[in-house]
């Protein structure tokens, strides 16, 4: 068990998300920086798909109610276990009664905590992720509150502290052209890639709203509602793009100017509000190479952890 002493702004139980129910309007949910959640789980020898915590901002504090292990990945938070400073990207042994504290992020936005055995909340439609909008999954279908207690799964014997280098955030987000890219006028198509976009304060787990020079369509053909996915960059009539993220609705009707490649979606999850970045065009081959690179990093990481 874990007890939440201070819950921070928005702490939720998340795993790799839900699939197979989008035709019923059920969103994906899951860790916004899914690779970080995966790495944290693997550090404590959980399945990558196990559930952990996504913490957006402090002050956050938990008390361990059994001995075990904890790992942190994702944003670099000011973190301590009792008086001991913790480093992002490492796993640490914990004793019953010890308290883990997170203050603010030094860089990035979301930190992921994994516990050996995983957070053992009920599986809902194939996932333990919290669907905040629909109010199910995770712990009671909501963000955590002070006093919540979370069950942990069975522990495994682990030996030493271990760590892995964290991925570097860069302000370039690679995208593929979206189905409606050509419907935007020439100036908008160029400015989409040339201008610097700013993450608006009206951003959340459903989507990141961007601020910049408005984009315009040259055709005014109306779109009918269609399936949308995390990564889709849609442009509503005000011309300011929205990048859909894990909690996005399953259908939408705005033109899709671009789609963020899977390998770069975590960069948005870790971009603080107000952060500036650019979109860089790539193609399916580029997207595939990026996926492959991440796979190779994972293999290296697995080998360094458990291969010797």
């Amino acid at each position, binding site marked *: 068990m874990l007890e939440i002493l201070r819950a921070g702004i928005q702490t939720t139980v998340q795993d790799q998300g839900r699939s197979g129910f989008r*035709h019923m309007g059920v969103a994906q949910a899951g860790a916004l920086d899914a690779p970080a959640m995966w790495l944290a789980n693997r550090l404590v020898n959980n399945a990558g798909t196990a559930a952990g915590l996504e913490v957006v901002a402090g002050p956050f504090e938990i008390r361990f109610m059994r001995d075990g292990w904890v790992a942190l990945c994702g944003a670099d938070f000011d973190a301590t276990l009792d008086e001991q400073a913790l480093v992002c990207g490492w796993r640490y042994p914990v004793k019953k009664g010890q308290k883990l504290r997170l203050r603010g992020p030094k860089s990035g936005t979301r930190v992921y905590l994994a516990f050996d055995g995983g957070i053992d909340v009920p599986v809902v439609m194939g996932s333990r992720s919290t669907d905040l909008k629909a109010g199910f999954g995770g712990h009671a279908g909501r963000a955590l509150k002070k006093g919540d207690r979370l069950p942990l799964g069975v522990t495994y014997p682990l030996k030493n502290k271990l760590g892995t280098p964290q991925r570097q955030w860069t302000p370039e987000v690679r995208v593929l052209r979206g189905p409606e890219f050509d419907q935007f006028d020439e100036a908008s198509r160029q400015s989409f890639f040339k201008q610097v976009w700013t993450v608006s304060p009206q951003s959340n787990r459903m989507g990141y709203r961007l601020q910049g020079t408005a984009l315009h369509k040259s055709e005014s053909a109306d779109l009918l509602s269609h399936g949308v996915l995390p990564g889709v960059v849609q442009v509503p009539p005000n011309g300011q793009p929205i990048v859909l993220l894990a909690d996005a609705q399953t*259908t939408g009707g705005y033109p899709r100017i671009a789609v963020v490649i899977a390998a770069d979606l975590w960069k948005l999850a870790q971009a603080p509000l107000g952060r500036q970045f650019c979109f860089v065009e790539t193609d399916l081959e580029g997207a595939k190479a990026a996926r492959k690179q991440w796979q190779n990093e994972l293999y290296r990481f697995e080998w360094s952890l458990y291969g010797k």
Partner: protein
Amino acid sequence: MKNILPQTSVDFYLSGENAAVLYSRSPVDVDCQRRIWAIAQVITNEAICIDVVPGMNNLTLIFDPELQQGETLLARLKTLWELVEIEQFTPREVQIPVHYGGEYGPDLAAVAVHTGMSEQAVIAAHSQAEYRVYFLGFQPGFAYLGGLPSTLTTPRRTEPRLEVPAGSVGIGGQQTGIYPVTSPGGWQIIGRTDMRLFDLHRRVPSLLQSGDIVRFVPVDASEQNGDKHA
């Protein structure tokens, strides 16, 4: 019945790394949608995709790019678009009992005033029509229904409600629908059903599925006709 819709009216394309899309540019009608439901059923049964998501006049297949080639799925969609017979899709029929008016339908009077009909006539028109679930989206279990009689078209409320109870049946413009969960909403609420539109504990959580034929059945019609049994 083969090839009644020319290929030129439909686009097949990839969206991102993991979505294959069929998008018909023909006007929205039930026959086009039946074809989409039929294709969705075939693909779902083949279990070759992660998600099969019908939209309005379109179908999105979500796949794992490590296991599937997008181009292969597009080819499959093209073949099915030509081969599938719309009769292949057998819709289910779902009856939804509705308490119209009163505390359950606070906007029934407003709809009656706007449409120039009596409340009884609004109930009769709404419950005698046959609706189709075009697709689901927006919220878990929320069905986009086609088939609202044009005489019942009523604009949304100028002031949306902060809380519309789950099961509320409303009219918003040319659409009618049921709120699956208690949520804010701007539709004119004319009634409520006790049926659970979305229930995690059912094997299939959503009551309604794309392609379903839906009928609203007034509950306790005798009382609503004024025949109170004193």
